[in-house]
């Protein structure tokens, strides 16, 4: 049994990149990749820095343990690693994810699907009808969810076609609960849309946000949804049927707007703000952070390693820190 109150977060290392951080990604095996605004990157630790590989990178993902994909607004997507680098054009490329041997790049009204093992092969390009892509995630099997400026689409990667298209305005964040097979999307109108993957048309809309939700996360079992809007954090408890509590816990958790949010496999949540403050929260003690750290400037990315043992946090001025996080154990 764990007791999150006794959680410790010890700084493993801290460094500063030459430019602002743009994206942080952990591989399934725990390798770290950080891309900076000038296109240079850090791999694993501060001793391994690369030359710029993209002029205006915006997102990155690991393809297994040896290669990464970097999405660039000018060039498309750059695949790098194992001594080779290759670029493929994707119009309006903004976001990338990789799972089950495939890599998906969200672009301007399209997504491009690549195979991990042969990025040179022509991509399968699918017109989404969702406008400019802003967020995407792998869901179940060969299915992907893509949020864009005019809606949310579920894409069947195996068939290379759109499975479902849901009209929403300005979807800027999506998250997936793997065990519960539940998807959540945040739109510009200030609503969250909780969607069961097997019956997407029967979603639940969670509204009441005066400011649009910009960052969200959902636990793997689908029982906890955390959303950040301005300086507030909302904790939605969701039952097995996918119905949320009528009254979520809502509190102002930062003195400045929340600019990053992530949830670990242990259920710990980290939030970063516009002043560089980072809080770690337990879902069971939501009125007080269980750990607090600080970087030099606005937090632009925070990511947990897949086993939940390490947390990487990056700032707009290029500061980057990795923490070993240990949830406290009750004897």
């Amino acid at each position, binding site marked *: 049994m764990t007791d999150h109150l006794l959680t410790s977060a010890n700084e493993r290392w801290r460094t500063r990149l030459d430019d*602002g951080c743009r994206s942080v990604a952990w591989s399934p095996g725990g390798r770290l990749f950080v891309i900076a605004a000038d296109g240079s990157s850090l791999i694993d630790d501060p001793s391994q820095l690369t030359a710029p590989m993209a002029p205006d990178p915006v997102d990155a993902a690991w393809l297994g343990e040896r290669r990464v994909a970097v999405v660039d607004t000018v060039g498309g997507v750059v695949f790098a690693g194992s001594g080779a680098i290759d670029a493929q054009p994707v119009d309006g490329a903004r976001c990338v994810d990789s799972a089950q041997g495939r890599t998906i790049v969200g672009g301007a009204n399209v997504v491009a699907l690549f195979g991990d093992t042969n990025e040179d092969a022509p991509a399968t390009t699918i017109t989404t009808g969702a406008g*400019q892509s802003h967020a995407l995630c792998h869901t179940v099997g060969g299915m992907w969810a893509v949020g864009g*400026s005019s809606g949310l689409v579920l894409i069947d990667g195996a068939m290379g076609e759109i499975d479902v298209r849901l*009209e929403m*305005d300005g979807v800027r964040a999506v998250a997936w609960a793997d065990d519960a097979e539940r998807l959540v999307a945040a739109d510009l*109108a200030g609503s969250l849309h909780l969607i069961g993957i097997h019956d997407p048309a029967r979603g639940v809309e969670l509204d009441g946000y005066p*400011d649009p939700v910009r960052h969200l996360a959902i636990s793997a079992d689908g029982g906890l949804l955390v959303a950040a809007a301005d300086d507030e954090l909302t904790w939605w408890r969701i039952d097995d049927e996918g119905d949320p509590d009528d009254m979520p816990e809502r509190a102002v958790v930062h003195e400045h707007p929340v600019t990053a949010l992530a949830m670990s496999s242990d259920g710990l949540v980290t939030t970063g703000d516009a002043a560089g403050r980072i809080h770690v929260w337990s879902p069971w003690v939501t009125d007080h952070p269980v750990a607090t750290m600080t970087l*030099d400037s606005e937090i632009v990315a925070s990511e947990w390693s897949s086993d939940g043992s390490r947390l990487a946090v990056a700032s*707009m001025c*290029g500061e980057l820190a990795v923490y070993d996080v240990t949830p406290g154990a009750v004897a």
Partner: protein
Amino acid sequence: MVNRSPVPVTIVGGAGAEDLARTLRAPDHGILAGSWHGPGSVQIDADTAHRTPGCSCCALRLDVIDGLLRAVRRPNPPAHVLLVAEPGDDVTTIAYTVLSDADLARHVRLDGVVVSLDAVAMATRKAGGAPLGSGPELETLAIADAIVLDRASELTNDAIISIRHSLGAINAIGSTLERTADAALLSAQRQRLIGIDAWHGAPAVGARIDVELRGPDDGPHTLILRQRAPLDPDAVDAWLDRVIESHAQRLVRLQGALAIDSAPARVCCHGVRSYAMSHSESADPPASRRGESLVVIVGHDLDAGDLSSEFAATRVR
């Protein structure tokens, strides 16, 4: 914690926007443009969404948000950003986006709207009796803080005077100047176009009467309201709320300096469509303007009678 001032952003629109932006750009400036790549440039492609589905008055340019954040969320951001509105772009939507997005508000500040206008093409249209521009073009001209006449040297003085007269009927808030290739003159012109902070203070209009309405038949109108008596704070708050609520879709620019009863400084307000913000006036107004309230409303189908009488009713009784 890094504490730095928001980066000023100038929206450059009109037919020669890209060329004008390249001329105005200093080495430490950034440029956001759809099609031009060069030093300090960030590419953007039109990507519009709406805060409320179907509501045109809360349209947001998501590409502008992302592009500006990419340009300024860095250790050494540009000293100034020139945001090029492509031909066909809705400049009002871009201005609304820059002002209203919470993330952008932390990092950037709308400095002004500068419009490049082909003087020869305009003179030709005038001579032929054609409309001076399409609806969106007239809207852009109406909210501009400066209009730069390109190729004015190819026209006679009479033609330029005629163009200035026509522009004066469309735009009450900005200045018009002729573009020059002379380096010294260009440097002087740059100071009238860049770093002018035109949206956050009192509107740059001179009002000789208490109510003035101007504008072309087929374009947006500008209503200038003036009062010399102090205003009741609650009444003026309620009036501004009503203006936004009833005119949001038709409002392309709102700007005012309000002399509130017992307030130590005038309160400045600015807005576009459904967005409005107010703050204390930071600069000392000229002595002749102290105690004077001045509001400029640029929009479509303005009900000047109601707006002016309701504004007049906000004075302290």
